[in-house]
């Protein structure tokens, strides 16, 4: 680098630039969280049951195989839209589907990827279904591109 570009100039770009962008990021975070998100995440439908379902999701490390809104592992199908894909966007159909699915695991088909048996209670399965239904209704800018996730 040319001599006229000194170390103190470089340091000032670092300090000034990073300070400016940290502050900008905080302002944008405030706007996103306080103004935008309440209109996009259906928080009025965030019931006790949905919250319990999120804990079922977490306590069984579902994200270790599946993705949820595209984040997680890529070993098993995306589940943010499974309510639409497997439940036909109908709560009762989806709960029945989830109950049958969770109880049928593992398939034990030789050579196929296996989902463990988590021994969830009927209540826990229903909570999990509620959580996935709520998740499917978040405004996520239209992702995924199609029903297969």
């Amino acid at each position, binding site marked *: 680098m040319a001599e006229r570009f000194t170390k103190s100039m470089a340091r000032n770009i670092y300090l000034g630039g990073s300070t400016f962008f940290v502050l900008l990021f905080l302002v944008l975070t405030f706007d*996103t969280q306080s103004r935008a998100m309440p209109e996009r995440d259906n928080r009025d439908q965030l019931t006790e049951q949905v919250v319990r379902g999120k804990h079922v999701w*977490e306590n069984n490390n579902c994200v270790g195989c599946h993705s949820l809104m595209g984040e997680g592992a890529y070993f098993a199908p995306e589940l943010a839209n499974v309510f639409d894909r497997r439940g036909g966007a109908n709560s009762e159909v989806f709960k029945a589907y989830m109950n049958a699915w969770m109880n049928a695991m593992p398939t034990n088909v030789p050579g196929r990827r296996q989902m463990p048996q988590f021994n969830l209670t009927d209540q826990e399965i229903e909570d999990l279904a509620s959580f996935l239904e709520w998740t499917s209704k978040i405004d996520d800018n239209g992702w995924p*591109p199609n029903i297969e996730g």
Partner: protein
Amino acid sequence: MKYESQRVAMPYFIFALVLFAGQIVFGLVMGLQYVVGDFLFPEIPFNVARMVHTNLLIVWLLFGFMGATYYLVPEEAQTELYSPLLAWILFWVFAVAGTLTILGYLFVDYATLADVTMNKLLPTMGREFLEQPTITKIGIALVVVGFLFNIMMTALRGRKTVVNIVLVTGLIGLAVLWLFSFYNPSNLTTDKYFWWFVVHLWVEGVWELIMGAILAYVLIKITGVDREVIEKWLYVIIAMALITGIIGTGHHFFWIGPPEYWLWLGSVFSALEPLPFFMMVLFAFTMINRRKRNHPNKVAALWAMGTAVMAFLGAGVWGFLHTLAPVNYYTHGSQITAAHGHMAFYGAYVMIVLTIISYAMPIMRGRPYGNSNTAQIVEMWGFWLMTISMVFITLFLTGAGILQIWLQRIPESGEALSFMATQDNIALFYWMRLVSGCFFMAGLVVYFGSFLIKGQASPADEARGPAMQDA
């Protein structure tokens, strides 16, 4: 080694490498499970293997960063470490806690682990990369606080170099951002948003400061280039990293709920994120070309150039490939993400830790000019085997990802293949990835083998340059 207390870095480096080996073993297990789905089921389900693979990576990189810090901060500050005893105590606390956590993953059902560690008091588990029981997360926080105390007491009482200032800034950022791992709101979108404050702002933020500082230190040592020049480069690199990377967090906010302005902000700023990595390539090669000495530890220079190039390819180029929102709409959460993740972590963070180990370990073993020529050549074989294998892992995952998108994402609903049908169609790429992974393991074995070779380089191996100086 100028200060005796630098030697405390040794156990950190050794333990880091042991965990690295474990990480690769579980990587191979998962690679096989991708094509032979019921391999080791139900003993080690995929989610457990993945948790072990990723958590071992995070923990061994932290061990590596800590070892690097204990080694270089006293030398830069020109003083002994404040408390070598504290460094040893924290080593054992972290090693035991880390090992217990991994054993917990392997031998205790995850829901039971959540139960016995009383996750319900402060639920933090079950989120990608943050699967550790809350008690482990608290332990990590305490170890990092003790470590930072020790380092800052050392840095503050000695010479305040730019390398030390940048490194300590990065480590403080690492510690502060870790606190977001304790924030797990019941609203999934809020949870995800702040989850990225740990994950993105670590690897595309403060970890780049740590990487830059370690690279700068090694380049000062092996090239003998004037410190002023190197420090100026370091400032420019970390300035670019934070100017692009902070708002660049937005590339994770496209499809998880936040508003549409993030599509623009995330795309524009993250498209610039390759810049700091490109500058690291220029930095490493320019400094080595202008070297004032020919340090006999040639393999350390190879790692330094390698980490810059591979970080640029993995984090920079492979990151850019799928970072623009219209592209990411199709690639998000596909094997393209996995391809990028593998090469970026290897290039930027695995290789920077192996760079400082390559430079510092021989010195701590009483070989101030580096290992013998034979040992260096064997280590270079390890370098090339691992690095080329990682290139192929990345290419095969990229191929898998492109096909996955073509079959599963591009067609309309009703015509697109399902996730599992798509996986069957791209199995060949997973097999080739697995073979590449086996070569990576072979490279790691060769690399370990280089540590067993006796002998050292001598000062006579150094063809002195015009102004040899000990910076």
